[in-house]
């Protein structure tokens, strides 16, 4: 089995964070988490719930199309749900507990911007918009972040716009707003971040093979919280994980759309 590529390492690392208690769904352009849900379900977490496009529960697609909101992802589902009546009520009602999102910008507390680069009124770049991020960041307790472009333009001290909430202003901000849980991990193309239990700032949990802590600090536009007990290397995928990902989960390599 050839060594893991960065996309494979990211998918496997995210997949290992999911369990039989994970009840997840996905939004637009979410190839990495979709691969991770499918991989986890096919390996260590057979009871994991994943609703393709947030609608097709337990879908089992033969491959992943160009859109993660596409009906091409729904084959083999045990339920096709209605968005407003089923999905949004189970999301608000806490039956769903896991969601992953990314942003063009992310800050130290895992808040994300997918709305505008530059001032909102006169944007330098008009991004797609927050979509369901602003909603689901408030509703779902276990939030996972990922980024395929770990650089100071993505990981910024201050967002130009907060489209979706992570740990908010940090500390107990989410709790004060009456929001459940918060971001758990952020998996990037350089490392894995988790969050300081008190300040809720990102800290390095592990660096990917060949990446140094200095490179991560360099590529990150904000101050990181200290990592108690040092920074190990990210665990390598097993051959079986790589085989399942390459042969069963994403044979056409749709995930690479996020690495262009």
């Amino acid at each position, binding site marked *: 089995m050839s060594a893991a590529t960065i996309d494979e390492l990211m998918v496997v690392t995210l997949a290992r964070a999911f369990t039989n208690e994970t009840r997840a769904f996905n939004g637009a352009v979410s190839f990495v988490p979709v691969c991770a849900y499918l991989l986890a379900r096919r390996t260590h977490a057979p009871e994991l719930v994943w609703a393709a496009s947030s609608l097709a529960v337990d879908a089992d697609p*033969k491959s992943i199309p160009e859109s993660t909101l*596409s009906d091409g992802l729904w084959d083999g589902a045990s339920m096709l749900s*209605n*968005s*407003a009546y089923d999905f949004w009520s189970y999301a608000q009602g806490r039956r769903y507990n896991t969601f992953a999102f990314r942003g063009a910008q992310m800050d130290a507390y895992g808040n994300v911007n997918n709305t505008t680069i530059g001032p909102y009124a006169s944007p330098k770049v008009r991004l797609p918009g*927050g*979509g369901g991020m602003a*909603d689901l960041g408030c509703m779902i307790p276990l939030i996972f972040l990922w980024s395929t472009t770990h650089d100071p333009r993505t990981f910024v001290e201050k967002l130009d716009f907060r489209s979706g*909430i992570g740990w908010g202003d940090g500390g107990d901000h989410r709790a004060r707003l009456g929001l459940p849980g918060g971001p758990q991990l952020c998996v990037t193309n350089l490392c894995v971040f988790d969050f300081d239990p008190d300040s809720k700032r990102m800290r390095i949990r592990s660096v990917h093979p060949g990446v140094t802590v200095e490179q991560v600090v360099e590529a990150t536009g904000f101050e990181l919280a200290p990592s108690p007990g040092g920074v190990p290397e990210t665990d390598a995928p097993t051959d079986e994980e790589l085989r399942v990902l390459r042969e069963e989960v994403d044979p056409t390599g749709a995930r690479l*759309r996020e690495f262009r």
Partner: protein
Amino acid sequence: MTITGSVGFESKLRTLEEAAGEVADGATIALGGLSMNAVPMAFVRELARRKVRDLTVVAIVHGMPLEWLVAAGCVRKVVSGLVSLEGFGLAPRFRAAVQSGEVAIEEYSEHTLICRLQAAGYGLPFVPTKAGLGTDMLALHPETTREEVDETTGEAYVECTALPVDVAIVHADAADTRGNVRVDPKLVWMDSELVKAAARVIVTVERILPERAFRAAPERTTYPRFAVDTVVEAPWGAYPTSSYPTYGYDGAFFEAYQRAHADPATAASFWEERIAGPETHAAFLDANGGPETLLRIARRPT
């Protein structure tokens, strides 16, 4: 092709042209479907060809229909949660129009927008949610997404005020001439919220069925006849988006669309030749590969 309506009953069947004529300049319209799926594109194309003006377009999560309406100069404002071409990238015409200020955008999170539509549909001053708390979204429109605190529990929440819609246009699989509509196998998107919120409802369908087909499977009827004002027979009417499970979206169209927009000249000719130019819906399908394309996207049952 159209079968005769239920004898003795009013027929709500209209042509694409007649139905598009129901949308007045300055109207607020809402588009069904989501992203790459089940968008009433044949109707959108007809609106673009008619050069309807000053539309406010409610589009929860959309891409290509906004591209077309913006390109045709139909749009004054987009009320939206997310606009992109998904895996095919950002929406070029829309993005340019917003960045230049040519088109206004009234932006909400997806769920607060749904709540605004539900408030309109249910005749309520607002519908509450916790969506958007702690983000910059609420501050964009504090008068329509009002942050409040519950007097008893002390919980923060958001009041999403009613968003009235003049005309909702949704695409479905089948209808009868009385207006009963079936989304086959099931409605998954937010179209029903649009149908309930709108003063007038236009439904484009892949095929017309006799009323007896609805009476034979009443559990499969999605909208009752009294909620639907106009029915249009438009086979392949969601192209280039999908109409699950009959056909998928045409990825090749989206790729070509993006390639063409690398350059204003090629964008203009793509617009003329493959979108706005063709006189009829059939001619439009022909301009995009005709039967070969349709057979390619037709979904094989799995």
